[in-house]
């Protein structure tokens, strides 16, 4: 290889690195010390391994409950709940506009009754549950608190995460409901509520993963996400009711790990350092734990390819290793058949085994930040951090994140990068094994995938009808009425009211409608 060599995000690389490339020693103190470049904890994974968290859930609450109990039985240590799109976008299963989506990419939750079945026989004081939910995150949190109480588990003991990151939905994932301003208010409500009532629960998982899957490079992914994190913290701080130290420990982050091994490691190290500085310097955090950058990740996504799909097993394994060397706290490894359909039990088990081999056989988890002090890794971490700062400055110039989104600026940056990558793959400049090099005529595999069972949807509709028939209409009216009143005012936290609605068996669609009537809907800029 001759000529200019750079990382996938375009950071130029020297042929080799040496002592002159190392930052000053105080920039890289031992693991567990501010600014946490080398990790959040002094003993790395010795104290606690990362959480193996496989994203799963489809069809009805019964089917998903069965899958969760299977995964926990196989050594999974946390649940990750996938919701169907109607639940994510705020429609009930009996809405005729969304009938083909019910129970398809995740489980359908219409009312508390579904949540009760979903977590049946799973002790909520012993597992942590992550919900990939954004538009309706506050409602799902209300369900979880209410189910916990039904099980006799105090809300203070509940552990888990709601994704609750609406800004990236406007740009990259699309499960928005309301416009940015009221959405930010609701998110700030959940952050406050978790701080006071559900202290072991992460109120938000600021996610770069979806920027990445939409086409952003590693530096953009991290920078956009940090800027989103700032936007949320600004919102909470601006209310003047809470200090950063009261809620920062409940803010977490979520990314994709793709294939550029060292760049991914540098991304996590640089992101951790940058966030620590932001929390301390912008918000004046006094507690160093507030400055910790807690990270979950996915290995897979858009880094996986359909041709020669079994190669994806190898890709995911390398990505998983990069994630661990980058110091993540939890990980989902995607199944090799992800480009075609929802994974089978076999492919998803293999994906979990990939993490288990990494954790228990390779020895990479024995020592905290084993790459700390590497000339190359430290230099790349510094270069990455410089990129992050430059990208974040540019977003500030655009008037901040909300404005960049409403004007389609961020969407365009991502679409440009996605197009550039596509061209590089088409031209062969970016090599993808089995796709543009060493390609064969091997036909796409016959994947089993997941056949949606129409009977499941009908059962869901029956249950919803039954719940609507047997619940107290008066309670529904009262709780929705209270929600409506509070939504019209800006200073009342909506979470306790949503918990009341959940307990009265109001549907997701009913709660969403009350808020939509007050707040309106987001209008998408159509840029490509």
């Amino acid at each position, binding site marked *: 290889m001759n000529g200019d060599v750079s990382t996938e995000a375009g950071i130029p690389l020297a042929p080799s690195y040496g002592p002159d490339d190392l930052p000053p020693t105080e920039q890289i103190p031992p693991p567990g010390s501010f600014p946490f470049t080398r990790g959040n904890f002094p003993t790395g994974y010795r104290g606690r391994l990362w959480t193996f968290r496989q994203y799963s859930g489809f069809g009805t609450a019964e089917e998903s409950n069965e899958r969760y109990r299977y995964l926990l039985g196989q050594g999974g240590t946390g649940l990750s709940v996938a919701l169907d*799109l109607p639940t994510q976008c705020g429609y009930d299963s009996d809405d005729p506009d969304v009938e083909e989506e019910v129970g398809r990419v995740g489980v359908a939750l219409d009312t508390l009754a579904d949540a009760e079945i979903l977590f049946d026989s799973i002790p909520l004081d012993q597992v942590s549950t992550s919900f990939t939910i954004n538009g309706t995150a506050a409602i799902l949190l209300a369900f979880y608190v209410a189910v916990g109480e039904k099980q006799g588990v105090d809300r203070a003991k509940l552990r888990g995460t709601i994704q609750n990151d609406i800004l990236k939905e406007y740009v990259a994932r*699309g499960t928005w409901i309301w416009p940015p301003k009221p959405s930010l208010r609701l998110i700030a409500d959940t952050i406050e509520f978790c701080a006071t009532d559900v202290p072991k629960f992460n109120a938000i998982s600021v996610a770069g993963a979806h920027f990445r899957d939409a086409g952003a490079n590693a530096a953009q992914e991290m920078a956009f996400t940090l800027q989103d994190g700032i936007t949320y913290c600004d919102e909470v701080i601006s209310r003047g009711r809470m200090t950063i130290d009261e809620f920062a420990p409940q803010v977490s982050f979520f990314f994709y790990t793709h294939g550029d091994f060292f760049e991914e490691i540098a991304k996590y190290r640089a992101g951790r350092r940058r966030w620590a500085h932001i929390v301390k310097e912008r918000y004046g955090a006094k507690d160093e734990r507030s400055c910790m950058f807690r990270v979950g990740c996915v290995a897979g996504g858009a880094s996986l390819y359909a041709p020669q799909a079994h190669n994806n097993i190898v890709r995911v394994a390398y990505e998983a290793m990069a994630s661990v060397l980058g110091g993540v706290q939890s990980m989902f490894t995607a199944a090799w058949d992800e*480009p075609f359909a929802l994974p089978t039990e076999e492919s998803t088990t293999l994906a979990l085994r990939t993490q288990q081999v990494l954790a228990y056989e390779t020895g990479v988890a024995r020592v905290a930040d084993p790459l700390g002090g590497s000339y190359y890794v430290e230099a790349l971490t510094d270069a990455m951090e410089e990129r992050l700062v430059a990208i974040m400055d540019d977003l500030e110039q655009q008037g901040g994140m909300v404005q960049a989104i409403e004007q389609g600026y961020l969407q365009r940056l991502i679409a440009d990068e996605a197009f550039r990558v596509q061209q590089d793959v088409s031209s062969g400049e970016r090599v993808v094994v089995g796709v543009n090099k060493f390609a064969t005529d091997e036909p796409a595999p016959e994947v089993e995938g997941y056949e949606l069972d129409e009977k499941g949807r009908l059962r869901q509709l029956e249950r919803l009808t039954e719940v609507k028939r047997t619940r107290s209409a008066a309670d529904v009216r009262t709780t929705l009425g209270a929600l409506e009143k509070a939504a019209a005012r800006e200073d009342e936290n909506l979470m306790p009211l949503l918990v009341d609605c959940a307990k009265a068996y109001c549907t997701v669609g009913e709660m969403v409608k009350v808020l939509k009537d007050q707040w309106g809907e987001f209008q998408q800029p159509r840029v490509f």
Partner: protein
Amino acid sequence: MPTRVLIAKPGLDGHDRGAKLISRALRDAGFEVIYLGLRQRPDAIAKVAVQEDVHVVGLSILSGAHVPLTQKTADALRDAGADDIKLVVGGTIPQRDIPRLEAAGAAAVFPTGTDLEAVVEAMRALGQETDALRA
């Protein structure tokens, strides 16, 4: 006259990387592209397709709901009297569903991994077919 294409995402799926890539590649190849964005109802897609007099409608679906959504869009196009408009579908589509999509009315199916050039060429050919029908 350039080929006019409508790209839309029906249903609730929000993954629009593919739809945007295709839109841009078609535009760069000289097509006139209308990108409708997310959460488009089949009847609304058909209505715009007729109003804008497009040659081809492209749906992008990654949620698994491709068969019913394609069926609904094909029905909506037929109800709108737009039998000459070709319908194509791309996204996370298992091989076994391709015949089902064709039966539902798709003139072409582009599963994940389809070469961009191949999509552009197929769309060009379909546009010419529509022109021939209209001539």
